[in-house]
């Protein structure tokens, strides 16, 4: 694969041509680590990472994949109602997540388990949502990580508004916002409105689109006739495409875009070109709509293998280190599994809590009536 330096631009395809859907065909895009684990230098994206940092990124990649694997089995075993796997998107999430400063604010979809990990959210909290114990429930400001948003694209407007708030706080511009969304979301009105608002107000925000090629069963060509990053130009801000399976490139481009946002240069759209290696969720069956050969091709671009190859080849990781990470992954997986299985259901009357700042008369009345109803059963337990 050849990589040229300079601005990431691709000529728009003729209208009767589908958009290029693979990096090989897409021309320029930012890649710092090839699928074979070879480092590519880009003067426009210098890396400030030590060997320790890269080892630590490798550890994150392996751990979040382990958590994801455990979560899928927990769903199969009936412990979770559903799970949205991040398999294949670890580099996009860990790379961008590690580029955030502690003060930057994240607005995730429901698949940002890797970013949640970077923000210090206990994976068990994520499982609460998929088990049906809560709708989320973490404090966004505590971790600077918003609540998972199920409606596609809605969070991009919240992110933009939050960024407008940063502008109004008039502080030293030490903060930026990152909004995550997928390729399907780019068709949503809210995402396009977020682009408009962010652009005209020059808001300090990075739009991080993980183009994983599939919106459930719909391939990218059902969403766009041009590469997604090129949409940004029409809204008046820069867009670029990055190898979404390259953790170093995702880190570098996100860091640069965040810094530009903090410095008052407004929004950037990053299209992280990646692949959803698993099903959309555990309820989905991708064999109905895509070829196995496509998955096989993407396995060759695995986001973890290339980092391992790079570390080993460069003498930055001894076998002991790799074994330690694998052992830790097992431990974390076991802890998550145990915590999930022991997670109690909330008490029935909790369903009336937190609707308003103070419960209304109607809510109080319904709560009392339902409590009395439950109590009317012998051995009534609430």
């Amino acid at each position, binding site marked *: 694969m050849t990589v040229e330096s300079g601005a990431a631009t691709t000529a728009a395809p003729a209208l009767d041509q589908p958009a290029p859907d693979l990096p090989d065909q897409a021309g320029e895009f930012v890649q710092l680590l090839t699928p074979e684990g070879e480092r590519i230098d880009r003067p426009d994206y210098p890396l400030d990472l030590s060997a320790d940092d890269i080892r630590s990124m490798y550890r994150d990649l392996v751990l979040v994949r382990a958590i994801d694997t455990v979560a899928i089995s927990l769903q199969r075993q009936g412990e979770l109602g559903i799970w949205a796997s991040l398999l294949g998107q670890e580099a996009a999430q860990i790379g961008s997540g590690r580029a955030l400063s502690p003060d930057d604010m994240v607005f995730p979809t429901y698949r940002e388990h890797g970013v949640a990990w970077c923000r210090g959210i206990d994976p068990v909290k994520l499982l609460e949502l998929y088990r049906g114990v809560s709708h989320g429930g973490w404090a966004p400001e505590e971790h600077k990580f918003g609540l998972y948003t199920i409606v596609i694209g809605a969070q991009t407007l919240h992110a933009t508004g939050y960024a407008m708030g940063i502008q109004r706080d008039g502080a030293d511009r030490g903060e930026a916002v990152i909004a995550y969304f997928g390729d399907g979301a780019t068709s949503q009105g809210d995402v396009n409105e977020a682009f408009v*608002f962010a652009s005209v107000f020059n808001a300090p925000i990075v739009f991080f689109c993980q183009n994983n090629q599939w919106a459930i069963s719909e391939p990218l060509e059902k969403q766009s006739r041009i590469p997604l990053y090129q949409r940004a130009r029409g809204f008046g801000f820069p867009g670029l495409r990055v190898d979404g399976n390259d953790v170093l490139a995702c880190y570098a481009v996100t860091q640069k875009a965040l810094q530009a946002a903090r410095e008052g240069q407004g929004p950037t759209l990053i299209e992280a070109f990646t692949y959803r290696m698993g099903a959309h969720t555990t309820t989905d069956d991708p064999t109905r709509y895509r070829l196995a050969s496509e998955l096989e091709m993407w396995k060759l671009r695995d986001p973890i293998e290339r980092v391992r190859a790079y570390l080993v080849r460069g003498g930055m990781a001894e076998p002991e280190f790799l074994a330690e990470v694998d052992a830790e992954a097992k431990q974390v997986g076991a802890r998550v599994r145990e915590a999930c299985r022991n997670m109690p259901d909330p008490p029935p009357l909790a369903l009336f809590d937190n609707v308003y700042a103070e419960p209304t*008369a109607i809510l109080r009345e319904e709560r009392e009536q339902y409590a009395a109803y439950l109590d009317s059963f012998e051995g009534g337990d609430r």
Partner: protein
Amino acid sequence: MTKLTLSRGLNEGLRKALENDPKVLIMGEDVGKLGGVFRVTDGLQKDFGEARVIDTPLAESGIVGTAIGLALRGYRPVCEIQFDGFVFPAVDQIVSQLAKMRYRSLGKVSLPVVIRIPCGGGIGAVEHHSESPEVLFAHTAGLRVVACSDAADAFTMIQQSVDSDDPVIFFEPKRRYWDKAEVDTAAAVAGALPFDRARVTLEGADATLLCYGPLVRTCLEAAAAAREDGRSVEVIDLRSLSPLDMDTITASVRKTGRCVVAHEAPVFAGLGAEIAARVTERCFYHLEAPVLRVGGFATPYPPSRLEEHYLPDLDRILDAVDRTFGY
């Protein structure tokens, strides 16, 4: 006390809110230089600046969605939706995001966002400018829904809404924007009737007439006409549509034994249906007649040359009151 139009009452209330709390923002289409198409925000951008009184792109979902983000950042945005019929593009953000964030976060997030919506008909407008969508929002848990009916309440209730830590859908009766009333702009909001309480606007003994927003004036006129016929009608301005102040309603209906609910929105599955059911449960042995409803028909809002037939007027309301005496 000063005599102000309802529009001016809102303007003065918003001005107070902006003065009292630097986190209060106003945002919407044409709210800046123009002062809003109904001039509710007239002069506010000039006095408080473009960072606090924000002319937004023409996108309602964007307005509400970014307001949510601003609220997450600690601001208290007051959004203007230019006309009732334009709120629908924002319904996902209102219903799925704004209303549910507190619940989703197990109480860790408050979204103090006010969404002002001019509502109702009677101004001879084209389609989508005369709707009464309040029940959609009343049906959504997590939202407070209020409607002001005169300048004094407009002045107070908009400030109370801004102070609320819950999201508030604030309906403004657009055909009453130019009605004048005495307003004490020096009065503190603290001593005012809470915005989730109904007000007995006119006391009466024989029947209770429940209304809100644009129909409060119509109902007061109907009550005056009924008095000439020797019937004493109590008029209650609900003010809060969600939650409902059932205690005030119940006390009145137990006293009068008759209840009519009037609103511009269609009768079918309207707020009157909810009130009728609750009044029946609470006042069953006090009722002399079933609870009757007067409102819009089960049709889309008609062309303006027909709206006088669609909108409940004094005669249709009196007709319903009369019918409660026929049982």
